[in-house]
């Protein structure tokens, strides 16, 4: 499938601070792409370069034209409808039918003629999404679109984006530090940390790439931990559920563990192959727990970024 965004060894520094260091990824047409990383990872800088708001020090960031949505950037003194008309005029003749349809799509028909300055944050986010869809773009770039939304708003936005992707075949570039959002919405992700790509790939692959994990409900937790520790390929810890242990390994050792426990006289009530969550992968890759105060570490003084290739 053709790439709608193709980023190749993109670098960017702000003085001595290295924001991006030779990051590369591509987004295929029609996919919902997650751009994941803690605050300060370089997500917004990458998006700003994609949008032409900043220049890269090196590398290329070719893209086909797409609409954008960052923080809800709208004119408060205009109504929602007039905002859409105004932005639509920058793309060509205003299509009133499309403006009305978009207001309906984001659930803003009733409030479309009110001034934006009277809107809640959720309404602004929805209108900004409608703005981003003017001109029927093939690509939507969404930078932290759930900022400021309540759970209902987040749920509504997620349903809407999924609908856009499946029904209209839109490519969605979804930047977020909220793992649950990315996990539920995206087909493929890139994990960015301190300006570097830490992982990239299909979400399902990424969550399994680091091995296998099992939850085993046992009759004697202490004895079970002692038994599993003797297995070379396994790491074990007490489970989060009562009378359970969690076993991790880079190999599929379910039968070996089960056999060892039963042989040692430990009762095994249940052995469940648990899917590793994106959060586990994320913590392993970035070393920070999402939402923790450590999620925005100051970047270390980097070596000067070497310009590579043509500028974007």
């Amino acid at each position, binding site marked *: 499938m053709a790439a709608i965004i193709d980023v190749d060894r993109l670098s960017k520094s*702000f003085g001595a601070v290295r924001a991006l260091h030779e990051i590369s990824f591509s987004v295929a047409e029609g996919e919902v792409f997650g751009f994941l990383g803690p605050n300060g990872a370089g997500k917004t800088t990458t998006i*700003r370069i994609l*949008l*032409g*708001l*900043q*220049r890269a020090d090196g590398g290329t960031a070719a893209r086909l*034209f797409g*609409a*954008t949505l*960052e*923080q809800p*950037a*709208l*004119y*408060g*003194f*205009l109504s929602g409808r*007039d905002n859409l008309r*105004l*932005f639509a*005029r*920058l*793309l*060509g003749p205003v299509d009133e039918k499309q403006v009305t349809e978009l207001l309906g799509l984001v659930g803003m028909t009733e409030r479309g003629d009110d001034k934006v300055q009277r809107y809640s944050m959720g309404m602004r986010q929805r209108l900004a999404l409608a*703005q981003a869809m003017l001109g029927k773009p093939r690509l939507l770039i969404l930078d932290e679109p759930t900022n400021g939304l309540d759970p209902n708003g987040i749920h509504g936005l997620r349903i809407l984006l999924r609908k856009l992707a499946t029904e209209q075949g839109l490519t969605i570039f979804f930047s977020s530090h909220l793992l649950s959002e990315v996990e539920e919405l995206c087909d493929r992700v890139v994990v960015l940390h301190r300006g570097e790509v830490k992982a990239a790939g299909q979400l399902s692959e990424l969550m399994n790439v680091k091995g296998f994990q099992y939850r085993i409900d046992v009759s004697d937790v202490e004895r079970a931990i002692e038994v599993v520790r003797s297995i070379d390929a396994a790491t074990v810890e007490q489970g989060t559920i009562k009378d359970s242990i969690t076993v991790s390994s880079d190999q599929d050792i379910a039968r070996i563990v089960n056999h060892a426990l039963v042989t040692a006289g430990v009762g095994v009530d249940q052995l469940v192959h648990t899917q590793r969550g994106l959060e586990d992968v994320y913590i392993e890759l970035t070393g920070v727990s999402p939402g923790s105060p450590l999620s925005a570490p100051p970047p270390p003084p980097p070596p000067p970024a070497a310009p590579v290739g043509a500028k974007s």
Partner: protein
Amino acid sequence: MFISLVRTELQKTWRSRWVVFAVMGGIFLLIAGGLYTYYVISQHRWSPPPAVAWQTALRDQITVNQRNVTDLQSLKQQGGVAGGPFRGDLSIDAAIARAQKAVADDQYLLDNNIAPLQSSAITITALFGLGGIVMFLLIRIFGWLASEQVAGERSDRTIAILLSRPMSRDQLLLAKAVASFLVSLVVVLVTFLIVYAMVSFIQGSAGPLTGQVAIAVDGSKPVGAGNLVVMPIMLFVLMCLGGAMLGVLCVQGMSLLISVVTGRWAAIGITLAVLFGAPLVSAVVTGIITVISGSSDNAHFLTYLFVNVLAPVSSIAPVFGNAPAVAGTGMNEFGTQITTLAVWTVAFFAAAWLLFHRKQETG
């Protein structure tokens, strides 16, 4: 595409700042009402005065100036102020010479059937409507509006949306400059018509729109062949309008320059501080130079340094056929001031373009 951009900018300016225009309209109405009240009280009449032919007005002015010469000469003979300063830094001899020159200038115009500038309501409007206090205030409002053009978009973060649209930075900046200029042109034209109506009322006639007027090439020298430019009335009006709008454009260039590098409130603050502060600083420095050197002519160079955007038109204002003129007035001065303003304007816009072109939006 570019026209759509300009249209969008005009719409944004009107929708976000219509209150400013409404307030300006209200101020104009108040000024007009105040002037009319003053007219009624001072002239003891409600209706306009009867129109007076310019030749008659000129003869009356010659009579007044001749009486002035006589009075000044008798004052000098009494020895009260001989040799010393008489009015400000003007000696009585200089005052007599200026009054005599005014008489000679008027007589020359009368003898050669050349209408002076004040012979037509529309020329008076051009001088005072486009070179006086009204433009002084309007230009500051235009500067304020222009300073918000880019800085406001940056503060609202809408600049990211605009720049992600299929348009270049150059197009966006140019559209904003053109929209600012068009708004100011409309406001200036409407203001001109209001002032014209007021002047016509006070003059008792809207005056001729056709015919010729004369302007001294050098206002400090006697009017006569070689020191007069004769031109159609409407050309003169257009010349003043052009001078005033160049001043507006210069201020808008400066405001845009500030706007491309700051946020909204910083841009407005810096722009207004410069626009109100510069005349103040200029006046103080002029005063110091005048005190030290003994003549205000030595401070004339400040007009170029402080970008006095009213200078072109106001340099013509004192050049009435019957008014004493000083150095730094006349068509020559108008040309010099226009050139100075043009250089500043180009410099401001070039700097604004360069900085905006290189600017990376990080906010």
